[in-house]
């Protein structure tokens, strides 16, 4: 989405107990966000146990490869959408 509003995504993370599970997060949107922006927001504002890798942020280095709805994608080059399921790590 490009305007203002909010989206809900599911992200696999370990939680405070260290057990891997999907959790839902609601993210306020103000202008187009990519999945890396979403992970950053969730990690920084909602749940620091949500983890991911990132480096160049511009689709060049390949560090932020994640699984989105079952497909391998670069988080920084995928526009965030409502209802996405994100696995930041393959073996999580």
């Amino acid at each position, binding site marked *: 989405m490009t305007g203002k509003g909010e989206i809900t995504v599911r992200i696999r993370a370990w939680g405070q107990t*260290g057990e891997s599970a999907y959790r839902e997060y609601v993210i306020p949107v103000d202008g187009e*966000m990519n999945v890396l922006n979403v992970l950053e927001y969730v*990690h920084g504002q909602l749940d620091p146990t949500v983890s991911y890798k990132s*480096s*160049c942020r511009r689709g060049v*280095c390949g560090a932020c490869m994640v699984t989105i709805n079952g497909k391998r994608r670069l988080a920084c080059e995928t526009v965030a959408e409502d209802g996405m399921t994100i696995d930041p790590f393959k073996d999580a």
Partner: protein
Amino acid sequence: MRRYDSDVLVIGSGGAGLRAALEAAKSASVTVVSKGPMGRSGATILAGADIMADGATFHALGFPGNPEDNPAAWAKDILIEGFYLNDENLVQAYVEGAGQQVKELLDWGMTVRDTEERAVLTTGMSICAALRRGLEELEGAPITRVDGTMIVDLLISQERVVGAFGIDFDTGEFVCFQAKAVILATGGWHQAYAFNAGADELTGDGQGMAYRAGAELVDMEMVTFVPNILLAPPRYRGSLWFYILPGALLNSRGDAFMAWEDPKVAKLALTSEWNKLLFSKACMREVLEGRGSPLGGVYFSLKHLPTNVFDALEQAYPGWKFQGDDFSELMAKLREGYAAEVGPAAEYFEGGIRINERCETSLPGLYAAGECSGGLFGANRVAAATTEMVVEGAIAGREAVKLAAKDETPPIDEKQVEHLTQECTRFFDREDGVTVAELRGRLRRLAYEKVGVIRNGKCLSEACKAVNELEESLGQVTVATKRRAYNREWMESIELRNMVQCLLLSARAARERTESRGVHVREDYPVVDNVHWRQHLVMQQDGEDCTMRHVPVISRTEIPKEQIPYEEAIVQAAEALMTRKEES
């Protein structure tokens, strides 16, 4: 605990780290450890990028370039650009080493998109690819690559550097590296700034660990900002896209505020990387005087471009793709007359770990190369940082091997390893405290607002006090999950200490330097003071305290001991550079 043992340890795998590893591996065993993806991390891969050498070198290679040019003539320009704060020994090593380095990169297949008098235009990706090819050619060379591993601190035995201690992000394991010589190639500390144009892992790790180990740091107050960085939408934040387009800048009143009073300064701003300093300063002036955009920047418009010119521009960037980003939707809006909000972002750090022309730091066994080192560009970098990384990388690699060959290295101090293990795990022992996200957010806003493009004593004093408080809070940081593998928050807690240290040193040095020079612009001291301030500020840890010394610049170039109003000094620099160009 996993352990590695080699002659030379290189920390960082951007251009400087790869070039250092390549050089050292010709005659020694090398381990390269990288926090990001090996050979694709750091600032290099996103560089624009031009790579420079003197004109005669390019002429000899069959490119346009003045055959009468030479390294010494180029060095004189670099001193003017750096407001004579450059360490002239470092400048000499840079200009004399550049030709060989550029030739090698071309041999390894670096692509050339365009040429200038003293540069070829390529991309950071192409430079990285060329360096990787160079490494491949050393087939069978004893290089061990360890990526996804963050170095926490240097290991010291008998007052020399003997290795480093780190954490593997994927597993959360501690890793120990033993070496006869260690090369830091870790880049800048971009992430300390709310607006920055650097990769995520650029958190001043090298500067932080060198400082804690007792090495000298220099010129930490010098920070270059790049203008026209998109502030919104979030997806494009930090991209250099609008920096490279021919846009018009407007303030909130709609005034095109970029008026050049002096045609020579205009030429500098429009034809060289002086644009970073000159545009960033003008934009920030608008923001500080209340004529900024809602997000704290200014407006960037392409409305002045006739539609056919707009189309021609698209030919140069098919589909409006730049790096991995697709700007087509945004460009369609700009074509209709929409103006994007842009602002200056932290982009290059002139200061850093103090080195000599052999890339030796003040600590035995420790070398530094590329952006994490300081002193080459003085108060303002205009010449290419890409050239810096390969020249210094090669020197550091060569010198580290020399040391490794002659020295007996003391064993690692296992007590220090034990101490570091405890220090890194104390985050897990605290139940309550502050989160790294909160402290990081405070740090980043503080850096941008108070140690930014335009400074004054009051803001800098406030910054010193606030960063001191942040430093004290570091002891209360907790992490939410005790699981060590893939623990981003844990890594950030360790990075935060480095960023806090860099900003603290930068703010203190900026407060101390009561003049304006290059990228250090003090509104309360708008004078370039060559009577008192042709001096570095050299900082060093001394127990719990930080010592700051005024050290005269290493130079063979005399300049008049006078005080010149800052704006006039820029006009003088422009005149001097243009006159030199015309004469050649």
